[in-house]
């Protein structure tokens, strides 16, 4: 069992080195700007106090994925976080920390997969190599729904409850800013121009139209009456 451990350590070391090299390259590319602002979230036009669940990301340039292995945790019959941004090339872990069996599957066009059912304490992972929107569900519990945003770069921000966000280290250029919520019909989209050592400030408004996302089970059928909740 020593050899795999050594191998993993070696790989991690390499990954860290590569990441550092990437960061260095990015920084070496020159001065960067930042994007900051506020997101106001409404539910069918009614302002929400809590703006959590919104992710902002920039599209228009690519960056290598970080070595980090983000997690989407299953607990209390839910996925945490509900929206997980990753960079294309990253592998996501799906640990079950709940007391019941869970299943993880996606029927998305970008990354269809099915990890099968597994109990508490086990974890499975999946590599997301192409950008896209991957809706993730549990085949047992219909209320469990999450989205993995596979992004081309690492310039994203998970908005807090107060709606404030900041994206740092943005290379200068004309990019598109997207504001994503699972409950909105369409993402909010802004064209921005980032200059070195400057901050683009903008306020966004996202109107959510639902509080949950109806979907089919992995067989393409509706969840049965006796489905677990």
């Amino acid at each position, binding site marked *: 069992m020593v050899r795999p451990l050594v191998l993993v350590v070696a790989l991690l070391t390499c990954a860290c080195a590569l990441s550092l090299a990437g960061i260095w390259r990015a920084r070496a590319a020159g001065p960067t700007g930042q994007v900051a602002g506020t997101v106001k979230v409404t539910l069918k036009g009614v302002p929400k106090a809590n703006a959590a669940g919104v992710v902002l990301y920039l599209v228009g340039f690519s960056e290598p994925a970080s070595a980090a292995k983000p997690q989407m945790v299953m607990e209390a019959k839910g996925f945490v976080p509900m929206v997980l941004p990753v960079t294309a090339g990253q592998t996501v872990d799906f640990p079950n920390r709940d007391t019941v069996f869970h299943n993880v599957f996606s*029927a998305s*066009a*970008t990354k269809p997969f*099915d990890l099968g059912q597994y109990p508490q304490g086990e974890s499975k992972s999946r590599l997301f*190599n*192409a*950008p896209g*929107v991957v809706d993730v569900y549990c085949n047992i519990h219909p209320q469990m729904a999450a989205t993995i945003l596979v992004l081309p770069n690492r310039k994203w921000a998970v908005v807090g409850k107060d709606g404030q966000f900041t994206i740092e280290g943005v290379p200068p250029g004309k990019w598109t800013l997207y504001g994503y919520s699972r409950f909105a019909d369409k*993402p909010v989209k802004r064209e921005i121009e980032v200059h070195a050592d400057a901050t683009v400030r903008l306020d966004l408004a996202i109107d959510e139209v639902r509080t949950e996302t109806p979907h089919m089970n992995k067989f393409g059928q509706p969840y049965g009456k006796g489905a677990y909740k």
Partner: protein
Amino acid sequence: MGSLRARLVAVLALVALLAVGSLVFAARRLMEDRAEQQARIDFESAKDQLDRSLSLRYEAFRSISDLSYVLPVFRQIAAGTDDAADFGLGSEQGDADRTELLHQNLVDADWSWARQAGSQALVAVADGKGRLLYSTAAPGNVGRSLTRLSAVHQALTADDATPTAGGVHDSGAMVIDGHDPLLFDAGLWPAPGAPGLHVVLVRATMLGGQPKALFVQVVRAKDLLADVALTSRGTHMALVSPAGKHEGDVPRPVAEAVLAGQDHVTRAHMHEGRRWLAYKHLLRDIEGRQTIGQLVIGRDVDTGFAALLAVRNALALAALASLLVAMVAGAVFAQRLAKPVLAIEKAATKVADGDLDVQVQATGPTEIQRLADSFNAMTRGLRERQKLERTFKRYLAPEVVDYLLNNPEAQQGGQRRTLTVMFSDIAGFTHFAETRPPEEVVEILNTYLAELASAISISGGVVDKFIGDNAMGFFGAPIPRADHAARACVAALRQLDALHRIALLDRARHWPKLSVRIGIHTGDMVVGNVGGHQTQDYTVVGDAVNLASRIEGANKVYHTQVLLTDATKAAAQANPSHSFRFREVDLVRVVGKQTPVRLYTLDGLAEDKSAISEDAAQAYALGLSAYRVGAFAEAAVQFHLAASLAPHDGPCGEMARRCEALRRDPPLQWDGVWTLTAK
């Protein structure tokens, strides 16, 4: 309508009308049947094609459905909203991954049915962007855009891009990668259970090759639901939804008519002056549960079969023409038939008027010719009979007439034959005629002559002529008869009998008693038709005839009724049919003749009792012997004896008186022959 011609024309016209009428009727029926049959065949073909299309579609759907159940994720992927691009996250890699995944699954699905259905059935599956995911024609060909196939393009760009009934259909011709052009029938339907996918069915017919690669160019593209079903022109289609919504170009009344009927095909339905045939086909959804609607295929028969209708019109014209021809032919034929009949009728009228020289020129049918021949034979017969009657100018026994008609040569030219000729004269008639009114004279004369002639005819003789109160007849011609002399004798006896009969009647009518003088002679004479061209007599000429006449006259001398020569006696006795009692009267020399003639009288037949007694006859014979040798005194004794025995016998008295005179004044020379001085 009475004439033959009119009837014939009418009958021929009727026959022609019937024939042509039935022909036109049959042709019309035939054409209508053919039209209907063709329509039915087309309908059946349409139905087959539809069924094949539906079946193919169903199989394709089933394949994808099976795949979806075996690999649920496949369906999820196919159905999943690929909204990465909406989120600015679309990437070629993502697209390719997804396409590859779908493709692999489709490759692994069961398409054996499509291969069994034949290479002409191309089945392809496209994704929501019209990209080829799989095709049975070229399984390795992935990712190509099908949007150039207008059906695909239309399905993907239409506002209501989720057709539920029949999908989007297209057909036309296309070229496959430089191969021969092919006719195709392409349809695109959403795959059930995988709404992101579309099933593309291409049923292609290619000349001289197998469809190998997928199409690259659509030569003609048109929304032709009708052409899918029917390749023949003149066909209309309509889709009638269960709610009654009518889409298509079949006239609504026609569609309603076929939908209301029990049969799948209407009988000819009239719409705006045109006959329509319509066919209905129930369309169900792919599971066969739900009725999508009724497909109505209509055909305008009158337009589709305009050529046949033209033929029908031509036939009607031909019918009219043949009717005219038949009538003209009938008239001509009737004319030809009636002409000889009319000619015969005309000739018959002439015959009735007495013209027996009429001949009919017969043309026409055999029966008519036979009629004409018979008519000609009849006039010929009448002519000959008339000629006979003209020639003989008197009564002929029927058997003689028959003989002459059967042996025309018998009266041709002249013949020298031995015959018996007979003259019969009514004695004392001249005096009688002077004292009586002429009407009575003629009446009596005719009565007597008729009896005399009748006796001659009955006995087989020919009444030659009447000379005043004299009837002349001859025997042995024209029918040759060996017993002509005997027949003449029989005729003489019959004439005497007839005279007795008339005499009885005459007393009642206060007519005078008339007697007859008969002279008979047998000898050679010439017999034949004598006279000019117009009037000819079949008669006898010669010395023998004159002699007979003289002998008739000699009756006056001997007060006899019948005198005949020894030639006749000999000829009559040579034929033993009758036994006559002849009595020699005298030996005479008639006027103009040197040769003496022995005369006999006829005392009847041997069995007759009315004749003179044997004694008287014997005395007469003795007297005659003495008289010959000039012993007139002795002869006178004998003759007186005979006269006393037979006081009414003429020769007895005559010879007694003559011998008395000769005895008183004997002649210088005596050869026993008495010379007659009167004719």
